[in-house]
C-alpha cells in the first residue's frame, strides 16, 4: 500500500496552492485563447529556426574544406539572419494555406486538390481590388493599411464562398464514393478554375497577369541593429505585416475551433461523422462551414502572398498549394497545430535550400531546385513518419 502524501496530514501545502493557481490561470480564456497560441507560434518559429540553423552551421563546418574561394562558415553566418526572416515569412503563408487542407482532411478525409486555386482566386481578387482603387484614385488618399485590410477581407469572402460552392457542386454528390473518385473530381475542379479565371481575366482586362499596384511604404525596411551582429537585421514592412496578419488569423482560428460551439461541432464531425449526426449536428452545414473557413484562410493567404510576389497569374497556386499540402502532411494531416509547425519548417527549409544550395555546391545546383525540395521532404516524411511530426499513429483506413 502506498504511503499517503505528507500533505494529507499537514493540510494544503504552499506548493499545491501554486499548482491550483496555475490550473486556474490556464483555464482562463485569456490564457487559453490568446497567450497560449501566441506563445506556441513563437516557440515553433524560434525552435524550428534554431534547429535548422544549428544543422546548417554544422554542415558548414563539415563542408568548409570543399569550398576554397571563401570561408564557408563565415559566409553562412553572414546571411543566416536574413534567410531565417525570409523562411519564417513564407512559412506563415504556407501554414495558412496548409490549415485549409488539414481542416478539410480532418473532416472528410479527402485531399482538396482545388485548394491551391482557392488561394489563387483570393490573391487575384485582392490585387484586382487594389488595382480598382488605383484606377479611381482612392489609393493615394486612403490609409495603406485600410486598403490591405479591405483587400484581405474581400479575398477571404470570395474565396470562402467559392470553396463552399465547389464543395456543393463537385464533392457533395460524391460523398461515400470510393476514395479516388472525389480526388479526381477535385483535380478536375482545380484545372477548371485555373482556366476559368484566365478566361474571365482575359475577357475583361485582355491580360491574365495581374500586377500589384505600387503604393504605400511596404517595400521599405525596418532596421534593427543588434549588438554583436555585424549587419543590422532588416525586416521588410510587408513581411512584418504578413506575419502579423497570419498570427491574428491563427489565433482567431484557434479560438473558433477550440472555444466555440461551431468548433466543437467541427471537431465532433471530424472524429465520427455518423455519431455526430446522431447527436443532432447538421453534418452538411458543418462541412460547408469547414470549407468556408478553410477557403477564407486560403483567400487571405493569397492576398498576403500577392503582396510579397507582386505579380500573379491564374497558375500561381500550383506550387504554393503543393508545398502547403506537404506542410500539412509534415505536421500531421488533420492536426491544426501540426499544419502551423509544418508550414514554418517547410518555409525555412525552402529558404535555406534557395540560399545555401548554390553556396555549398559551388554553384552546381542553385535556387532552381527549391521547388522540388518540398517533394523530397514529402517523400521522406511519408516513408519515415507517415503520421507527421505531431500526428498520432493511427491505423490507416482503407
Amino acid at each position, binding site marked *: 500500500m502506498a504511503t499517503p502524501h505528507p500533505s494529507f496530514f499537514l493540510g494544503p501545502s504552499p506548493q499545491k496552492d501554486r499548482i491550483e493557481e496555475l490550473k486556474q490561470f490556464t483555464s482562463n480564456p485569456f490564457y487559453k485563447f490568446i497567450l497560449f497560441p501566441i506563445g506556441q507560434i513563437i516557440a515553433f518559429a524560434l525552435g524550428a529556426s534554431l534547429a535548422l540553423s544549428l544543422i546548417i552551421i554544422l554542415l558548414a563546418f563539415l563542408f568548409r574544406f570543399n569550398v576554397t574561394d571563401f570561408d564557408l562558415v563565415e559566409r553562412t553566418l553572414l546571411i543566416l539572419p536574413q534567410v531565417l526572416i525570409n523562411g519564417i515569412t513564407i512559412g506563415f503563408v504556407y501554414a495558412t494555406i496548409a490549415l485549409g487542407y488539414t481542416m478539410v482532411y480532418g473532416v472528410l478525409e*479527402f485531399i482538396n486538390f482545388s485548394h491551391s486555386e482557392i488561394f489563387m482566386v483570393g490573391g487575384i481578387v485582392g490585387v484586382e481590388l487594389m488595382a480598382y482603387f488605383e484606377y479611381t484614385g482612392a489609393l493615394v488618399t486612403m490609409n495603406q493599411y485600410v486598403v490591405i485590410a479591405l483587400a484581405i477581407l474581400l479575398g477571404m469572402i470570395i474565396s470562402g464562398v467559392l470553396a463552399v460552392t465547389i464543395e456543393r457542386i*463537385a464533392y457533395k454528390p460524391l460523398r461515400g464514393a470510393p476514395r479516388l473518385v472525389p480526388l479526381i473530381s477535385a483535380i478536375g475542379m482545380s*484545372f477548371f478554375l485555373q482556366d476559368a479565371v484566365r478566361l474571365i481575366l482575359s475577357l475583361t482586362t485582355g491580360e491574365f497577369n495581374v500586377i500589384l499596384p505600387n503604393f504605400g511604404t511596404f517595400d521599405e525596411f525596418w532596421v534593427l541593429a543588434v549588438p554583436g551582429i555585424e549587419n543590422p537585421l532588416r525586416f521588410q514592412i510587408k513581411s512584418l505585416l504578413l506575419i502579423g496578419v497570419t498570427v491574428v488569423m491563427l489565433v482567431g482560428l484557434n479560438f473558433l475551433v477550440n472555444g466555440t460551439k461551431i468548433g466543437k461541432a467541427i471537431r465532433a464531425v471530424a472524429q465520427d461523422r455518423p455519431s455526430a449526426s446522431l447527436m443532432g449536428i447538421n453534418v452538411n452545414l458543418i462541412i460547408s462551414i469547414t470549407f468556408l473557413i478553410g477557403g477564407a484562410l486560403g483567400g487571405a493567404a493569397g492576398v498576403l502572398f500577392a503582396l510579397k510576389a507582386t505579380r500573379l497569374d491564374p497558375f500561381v497556386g500550383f506550387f504554393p498549394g503543393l508545398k502547403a499540402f506537404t506542410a500539412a502532411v509534415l505536421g500531421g494531416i488533420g492536426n491544426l497545430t501540426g499544419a502551423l509547425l509544418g508550414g514554418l519548417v517547410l518555409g525555412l527549409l525552402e529558404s535555406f535550400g534557395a540560399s545555401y544550395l548554390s553556396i555549398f555546391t559551388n554553384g552546381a545546383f542553385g535556387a532552381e531546385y527549391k521547388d522540388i525540395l518540398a517533394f523530397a521532404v514529402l517523400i521522406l516524411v511519408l*516513408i519515415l513518419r507517415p503520421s507527421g511530426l505531431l500526428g498520432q499513429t493511427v491505423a490507416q483506413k*482503407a
Partner: protein
Amino acid sequence: MTQPMKTFFSDLYKKANQGPWPLIITVGLLLVGTITVYQSPRSLAAFLTLMLCPVMLYFLKINIKVKIFMGLLLAIVILPVLGIRNIFYLEVIFQMAVFAALALGLNIVIGMAGLLDLGYVAFYAVGAYAWAIFGSKQLSLLHSIPGAAPAGAEFSLAPSYFWLFLFLGVGLAALAGILLGLPVLRLRGDYLAIVTLGFGEVIRVLALNLDKPINLTNGPQGITPIQRPPLPPGFIMEPIRNLLTPIVGHAPTDAEFYNVFFYLLALVVILIAIGVATRLEDSRIGRAWAAIREDETAAIAMGIPLVRLKLAAFAAGASFAGCMGVVYAANRTFVSPESFSFLQSIGVLTMVILGGLGSIPGVIFGASAVVILNIQVLQNFSLYLSALRQSDAVIPLINFAWKDLSNQLDPAKYQKLVFGIILIVMMIYRPAGLIPAERRKRELVEDIE
C-alpha cells in the same frame, strides 16, 4: 437521360442490330467517310463520320473476322493514305496512336491496380530523353554552354540504334517506375497520387536544370536534332511512292513517310499493349490487382504479395510510356521539358477516365476522342472565332460586336478547362466511363461505404 429517351435509343440499337443492317451501316460509314474526307480534307464533319465507323464496328454485331478486316483496312490503309493527302490528319492519327498507347499503359496502373498515378508523363520523359541524349549530338556537347555548340560536334550513335533504344526505353522507364514505387507504394491511394505528381515535377525540373554542372539535357532549349531510324531501302519505297502519287495528288516526301512509319510503329505498340492488357486482365496477376484495388487489407489476408504486385503494375504501366517516349523523340526530332508538364499527365488521365477505367476499348476511344477534341474541334472553334472577329457581325440582343472580342479568347489554348469539365462531369455522372469495363460495371452499380 429520361426513360422514354432511353427506350428510344435501345430500340434504335436493337433495330440497327438486325439482319444486314450492321454491315450496311459500317460499310456505308467507311465509304462515305473516306470519300468525303478525300474530297474535302478540311471538313471536321467528314472526319467524324469516318471515325464513327470504328465505334459502330465495336458496338454492332458483325462477324468478328469482318470486324477485324474492316478495322485493319481503316487503320493501315485508309487513314495513312488520307493522312498523306492532307498532312494535318497524319498529325491527328499519330497523336491518337501515341496517346492511345499511353492511356493503355496508364490504364494498367489506374484501371487495373487502382493506383492513381498523376506523374505518368515522367516515364514518357525518361524514354524520350534517353533517345534524345544518345541519338543526338548531345554527348559531345556535355561540356559546352547550352546554345553555344562547338563546330565539330557529331552524332554519337548510328540512327539504327533507335531500335535498341525502343527496348532500352521500356527497361529504363520500368526501372524508374520501380525506383519510385519502392518507397511510396506503401502509401494509401491519395498520398500516392500527390507523391507521383511530385515525381513528375521532379523529372521536369531536372530536365529543365541539368544543363549544369554538365550539359546533359540542354536545359529549357531542349535537345535537337534527334536522329530518326533509316527508312526501308529505295527498292521498297519507290514502288509505294509511285503507287501513291496519283492517289494523293503529289509525290509523298520522306517526311510524310516518316510520319506514317511512326504512326504504324505506335499501332504496333498499341497492339502489344492490348495483347498484354487482355492477357493480364484475367490472369493470376490481373485478379490479384483487382483484389488490391477493391480492398487492400483483404488482399493481404488472402496472401497476395502487395508491394511486389503494385511494383509490377507501376513498372508495366511505365514501360509503355518509356517506349512511346522514344518514338516521340524520334518523330519530333526535338524534346524540351515543356512537353512533359503536369497538363500532359492529366490529359492522359482524362482519356482513361472518359473512356472507362479498366476498359481497353474505352481507353482507346477516350484517347481518340480527347485528341480529336483538342487538336481538331477546339482548333476549328478558334479559327471560327477569329473569322468572326474579322467580320462585321454583331450578336443581336446584347448588341456586342464580335470585333471587340478579346484576342486572348482562343479555345485551342483552353485545354485545362476542357479536361477539368470532363473530369468533374464524368466523376459525378458516369464514374465508370463511356464504355465501362465489364468488371467495373458490376462494381460501381452499388457502392457500399
